[in-house]
């Protein structure tokens, strides 16, 4: 009531003589119902008012794409969807009461005028009533001055998925009727959920992972209702948006580790038909870190061999592998000619220079070199960013881990890979560093410029794309392949550093210790592949963002050793958690363009992790698990804690049960190097 009355007077002040004229009785009645409404339903029950006491902030620009509303099937118009959603939740009596008792204010600053604002904050008027907001408005100005004296923490983050706690899948889905469930692990959003969807959007998840995916949706819904201006598009919405891209066939598929990303969700696979002249390539579908991937080295060392020299090895690795923000690379800065050679030849260059073993190349996707890479398509800015970073780990979720084989699920496949229980492996997770980021940035800029020329309309500005056949599309693909080659060389140089570190610490030759490459996969890439879609063999450009290729046994592109068992899929966990090696299956080829998950996928935001987790505790726990850690940044420990990520075992089990990949071995970390 305080807030309400306060709003009334402020409103009249703001508007001069035109004010709310409410009789005392009416206002008391109003306050009673207001309280009842507060107690009875959530705030989302109230009808948006067109009056607002505070002038609308003038929105100079906004990229909040439409739609931004919870899943509802049926009518497509955004406004009517909002309305139908609200009217379902609201009792019409209450809403009428509001509209009758409060005199309608002039709509000088209403949200009705600008459709963009309407979509983003169609419920803006609601906020004028919320007591929190009212209180904040009255005393909120102090925030400006206050910030000079107090310590700001990362903004308070609520757990929006609490209401899904302890629910079964059917109950969770009641909230989101547009999501179809096949009773198993597959969830589908049919064509028509978003206008102009060409195919269905679907994803794989089990109960725990579904809770996280839907939690993202709820968080976003709640934020838009609160009128909070921060926010991002949830992964499921992004899945649906991707299905609207021209040329998309078969489906927009989400992996169990799906979460929100740029344009495409991370864990999103989409294939475009290359025979279709309208087919597009989207840099956002590959990601900023082009060819971010994982490389696995095996050895014939055992855990017992490692124990006495664990700390020494950890220190040595931390010394020779450049980690963290800032420049640094295994070999120093590359000259321009060398960089061009790296970009065009990939691991062939490394092999020529003796920086990797000859047999390594055959065990890498694409033989360590993408054909059709053009260093000329890579801008000088990208080269300037990348020349000092070839052979470095980077920061964020990249890592170098020394692991041991904990459990073998598939004997035959493990034998083919040379992995036995108790042997030591080394896993490197890194990408194309600054060069790849800049290539993607440049491509997004050029794509958004040519989209109008090429007459492509997208529902989300971030899905900037251009026709595959166009010069811009071909240029991006050439630059992407060059950046992918750079990443291959990056991982090769780090593998070299690892081999030498091992040689130094153990005093034996690397070949003697059997430090061979098992496989190297990429999980941020777009590749031209042949797939059978509805019985027809087609040439498809598969965008894999946060998804790994998982080809079936017998596929011609696989190396000889893995022909029988299928392609190894390296799924990295997060700090302190296990990693897995899977193999590709036939079902993956049918259902997901031969793709599967890539890792744990984030569950908690970085800010929330910073607030709720203590680096020291996390490190202590990781140490207690038996994993020696070397981290360059203390803050990263909280951000990258195991709690911030989904449970990789859940993700891998879901993939295994869905049949899109088979578990082969589980790896337990012993040493973890992070930037």
């Amino acid at each position: 009531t305080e807030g309400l009355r306060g709003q009334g007077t402020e409103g009249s002040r703001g508007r001069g003589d035109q004010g709310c004229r409410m009789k005392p009785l009416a206002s008391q009645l109003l306050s009673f119902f207001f309280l009842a409404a507060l107690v009875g339903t959530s705030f989302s029950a109230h009808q948006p008012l067109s009056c607002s006491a505070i002038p609308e902030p003038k929105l100079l620009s906004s990229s909040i794409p439409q739609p931004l509303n919870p899943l509802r099937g049926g009518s497509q118009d955004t406004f009517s969807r909002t309305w139908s959603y609200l009217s379902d939740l609201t009792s019409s009596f209450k809403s009428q009461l509001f509209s009758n008792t409060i005199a309608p204010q002039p709509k000088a600053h209403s949200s009705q005028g600008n459709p963009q604002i309407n979509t983003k904050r169609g419920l803006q008027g609601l906020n004028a009533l919320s007591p929190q907001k009212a209180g904040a408005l009255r005393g909120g100005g102090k925030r400006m001055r206050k910030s000079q004296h107090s310590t700001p923490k990362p903004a308070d983050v609520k757990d929006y998925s609490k209401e899904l706690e302890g629910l079964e899948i059917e109950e969770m889905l009641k909230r989101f009727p547009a999501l179809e469930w096949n009773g198993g692990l597959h969830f589908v959003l049919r064509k028509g959920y978003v206008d102009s969807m060409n195919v269905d959007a679907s994803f794989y998840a089990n109960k725990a992972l579904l809770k996280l995916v839907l939690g993202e949706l709820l968080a976003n819904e709640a934020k838009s209702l609160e009128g909070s201006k921060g926010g991002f598009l949830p992964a499921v919405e992004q899945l649906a948006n991707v299905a609207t891209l021209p040329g998309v066939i078969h489906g927009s598929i989400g992996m169990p580790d799906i979460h929100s990303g740029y344009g495409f969700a991370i864990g999103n696979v989409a294939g475009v038909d290359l025979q279709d002249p309208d087919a597009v390539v989207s840099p956002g579908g590959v990601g900023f870190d082009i060819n971010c991937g994982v490389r696995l080295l095996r050895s014939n060392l055992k855990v017992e061999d490692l124990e006495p020299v664990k700390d020494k090895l950890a220190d040595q690795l931390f010394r020779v592998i450049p980690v963290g923000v800032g420049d640094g690379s295994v070999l120093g800065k590359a000259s321009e000619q060398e960089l061009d050679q790296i970009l065009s030849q990939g691991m062939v260059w490394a092999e020529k220079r003796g920086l990797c073993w000859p047999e390594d190349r055959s065990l890498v996707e694409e033989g360590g070199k993408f054909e059709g890479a053009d260093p000329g398509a890579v801008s000088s800015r990208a080269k300037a960013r990348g020349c000092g970073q070839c052979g470095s780990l980077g920061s964020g979720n990249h890592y170098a881990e020394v692991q041991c084989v904990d459990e073998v699920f598939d004997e035959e496949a493990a034998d083919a890979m040379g992995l036995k229980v108790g042997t030591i492996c080394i896993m490197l997770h890194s990408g194309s560093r600054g060069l790849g980021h800049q290539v993607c940035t440049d491509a997004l800029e050029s794509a958004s410029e040519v989209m109008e020329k090429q007459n492509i309309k997208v529902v989300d500005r971030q899905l900037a794309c251009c026709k595959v056949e166009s010069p811009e599309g071909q240029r991006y693909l050439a630059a992407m392949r060059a950046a992918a080659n750079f990443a291959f060389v990056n991982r090769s140089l780090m593998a070299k550093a690892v081999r030498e570190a091992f040689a130094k610490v153990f005093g034996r030759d690397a070949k003697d210790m059997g430090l061979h490459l098992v496989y190297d996969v990429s999980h941020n890439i777009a590749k031209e592949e042949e797939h059978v879609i509805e019985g027809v063999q087609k040439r498809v450009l598969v965008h894999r963002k946060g998804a790994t290729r998982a080809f079936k046994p017998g596929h011609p592109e696989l190396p000889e050793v893995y022909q029988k068992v299928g392609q190894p899929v390296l799924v990295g966990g997060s700090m302190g958690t296990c990693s897995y090696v899977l193999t590709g299956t036939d079902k993956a080829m049918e259902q997901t363009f031969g793709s599967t998950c890539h890792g744990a996928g984030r569950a908690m935001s970085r800010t929330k992790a910073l607030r709720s987790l203590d680096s020291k505790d996390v490190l202590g726990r990781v140490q207690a698990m038996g994993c020696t850690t070397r981290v360059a940044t203390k803050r990263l420990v909280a951000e990258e804690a195991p709690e911030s990520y989904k449970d990789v075992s859940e993700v891998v089990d879901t993939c295994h049960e869905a049949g899109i990949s088979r578990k082969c071995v589980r790896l337990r970390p012993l040493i973890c190097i992070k930037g």
Partner: protein
Amino acid sequence: TTRQLRASGAQKLCSLEAQRLSTSGAERLNDFRSLTVGSLETCIPLSCTRTEELKILSAARLRLRGGAEGSKERGLEAGKLETKGTRSQSPKATSPGAEEVGAGGLDTEEIGMDATDIKPLPQRKKRKDDASGNQQPTGVGTRCVEGPEETRKSVVEGTGDVGAEGWHPGLTPSGTFEGKYEYLDHTADVQFHAWGNDLKEAFEQVTVCMFSYITELETVEVTAENLVEVSGHDLESLLYAFMDEFLFQFCVDGFVARKVTIDTWDLEGFKISARGHGEKFQPRVKHPQGTEIKAITYSAMQILQHQPPGPEEDREFGNAEVYVIVDI
């Protein structure tokens, strides 16, 4: 123009440095003037004023003093990890890490400024202090070279000093916070929210916010400036280009701006020219490493300008706000 230098090595370094700093090859060589301080080569931009030049030179001299003493008393031995002071050696060995790994043919001298990077003060002095229990007087030499204890130690041993209260952005030693920014929730990346009295200030603050995520700004001294000139076709692309240019200059030159001042602000033609005030990033030696920012994104980007507040009203977040998500 490059002056005659005593050591040919220094000359090579300077030209390489200038090359590295320039984005367009040879033209930028002329923008720098190199001065030798002892055996230390310093490149000073021609556009800087005399006071700034003196500051840079004095900083270089101090580093030189620290370095000379360091090399005398310590004798760099890569590979030894007995004492905690050695921790700071290994990052040094990382970038000229070619010594250990065995350079595959690349010229290890082509490392640029790294080889002349400052070396921390000698251990022996520190140990002497610990033994005698005296606090080393914070002379000019010490302060300039030696970063805060925790940054040097970092979290290498795993049981290192991490700080129980967590990490807060932009915290000054006295515990106050001066920036107008905060970090907002995003699943995988981070959203920067910055505000100010006007849009210009909001733009400045969001850039500082970005740098505060990369390192701790309290450890960054304002000794140098960099110049950024960008243009766009609308406000969003202008903000994007603005932040991207600062990020690019950080990636290539290692320049961290603690404060940003926008000089020309043209909203009709969408042009900005600004200066960043800060210094070169020295990871693990002076500045703690934060998180690397891969790229700026247009994702959920909002640039908001509010009406000027009435006499009684106060804005929660100033008159202008900016939301930017960056890719981590």
